[in-house]
């Protein structure tokens, strides 16, 4: 079956829609992640999502929700998203109120979340079918995106994009120079908390699709490529979104044609474009 024919299949359409939505969100968010030197945040929050998924899966199984027949409630995302949100706010609080650096604060939550995830998944009896494998969580399975997955991604995408575009001028100013922005009445601390919260939700819903391991790359590589080519933050923002969307569509197509895992193909496509951007920017 050709790629064009495959696009008529419902699962491919869902995969493409989910991929594009994630690309737009992570492209926009990535600009601030890269410029604020928070690249490790993506990895940290993705692993927080893993901890939340473990907790969510355990609660779903042990509370009998799995047998309730209410499809939406089967998904551990309902626990993972607020869990990631709490982890993100805790990281922001530690950054603000202690002398620990970002990477140290993130590293602590990273380790605790993975430990919790492994613990809770180990408590689930092996014969229980969650419809979600550990490998899917780690490496993603964009072609297996379900209707509820897509709905959750769409809702978070609308909220995240509206928030990031709405505060772009203030967030960019605070990213440039936090103190200078505060002298002009920008509530930089509040914006940082909101940025972390937004990142937590985006990463939690996206991790289901692109996987925990690859999510950090998704947040960093398009924005980093855009930084190499852009002369202004506005240019960087537009380029980051465009590069994220293009590499997602191309990567998805290549993964179908070569019959290889989609998440890694998308990230490798992004990496190839990063190399091109690095060469172009040097010349």
């Amino acid at each position: 079956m050709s790629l064009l024919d495959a696009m008529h299949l419902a699962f491919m359409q869902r995969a493409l829609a989910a991929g594009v939505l994630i690309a737009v969100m992570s492209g926009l968010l990535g600009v601030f992640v890269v410029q604020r030197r928070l690249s490790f945040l993506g990895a940290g929050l993705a692993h927080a999502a893993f901890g939340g998924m473990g907790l969510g899966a355990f609660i779903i199984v042990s509370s009998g929700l799995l047998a309730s027949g209410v499809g939406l409630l089967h998904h551990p995302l309902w626990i993972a998203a607020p869990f990631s949100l709490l982890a993100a706010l805790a990281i922001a609080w530690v950054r603000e109120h202690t002398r620990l650096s970002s990477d140290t604060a993130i590293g602590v939550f990273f380790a605790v979340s993975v430990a919790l995830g492994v613990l809770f998944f180990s408590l689930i009896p092996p014969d229980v079918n969650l419809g979600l494998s550990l490998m899917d969580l780690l490496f993603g399975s964009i072609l297996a995106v379900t209707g509820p997955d897509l709905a959750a991604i769409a809702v978070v995408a609308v909220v995240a994009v509206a928030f990031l575009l709405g505060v772009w001028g203030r967030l960019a100013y605070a990213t440039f120079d936090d103190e200078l922005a505060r002298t002009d009445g920008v509530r930089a601390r509040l914006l940082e908390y909101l940025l972390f919260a937004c990142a937590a939700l985006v990463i939690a819903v996206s991790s289901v699709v692109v996987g925990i391991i690859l999510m950090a790359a998704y947040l960093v590589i398009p924005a980093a490529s855009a930084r190499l080519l852009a002369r202004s933050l506005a240019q960087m923002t537009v380029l980051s979104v465009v590069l994220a969307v293009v590499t997602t569509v191309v990567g998805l197509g290549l993964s179908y044609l070569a019959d290889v895992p989609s998440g890694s193909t998308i990230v490798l496509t992004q990496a190839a474009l990063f190399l091109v951007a690095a060469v172009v920017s040097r010349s």
Partner: protein
Amino acid sequence: MHRVTVRLGEATVLQDVSFELAAGCFLAVVGPNGAGKSTLVKVALGLVTPQRGHAALFGVEAGAWPERIGYVPQLKTFDRSFPATALELVTTGLRRRWPARVGVGERELAYAALSRVGAEHLAKRQLARLSGGELQRAYLARALARRPELVLLDEPATGVDFLAEHDLYDLLEGYQRDTGATVVMVTHDLAAARYHADRVLVLNRQVHGFGTPDEVLCESCLERAFGHLGHHHALAF
């Protein structure tokens, strides 16, 4: 400022600092390292809230009128990997937001501010590629772009060569003459304080002197604030 006391952790950075500045003055704040000069500026900007006492600008609490203040920070703490031109930086002085694009009206005002500080040619240059003096001009243009009633400068001559430093003081005096604005400048340069300011505040956590340069920049006053070094400073200018 009335009996302003600021503690950061265990340390008392400012203690019972009181002074009143009339509109249109050029105040130089001098004192040794760690005297609390930058903290005083942050109190005036509303960035630091005193534990005791209060600070008011234009008759209201400090920080209430950011658009009436032009601030030039001490250290250029921005991330040099941030993609930004001098024009965009100056536009933040007009908009108080980072510009996605600079409109026609804003561009004219920003160019006028850059022109005033002799930096029109820097408008399209990336900030990361500017020298210390050029960066200082861009920041000064940003501060003056909104035609503030109060200009606050925290050690503006840091990293600036001798000629650029004198240009800077001339610019500030010119702006003050044209607009009647108040200028408050933190400086280590006692000579600059003597020749350019009409009021001097000698600070070392407490106020050790406040008055005209002739009244305040005397050996005994400086010795109280600086210790023995004050004697050498006093002789130096």
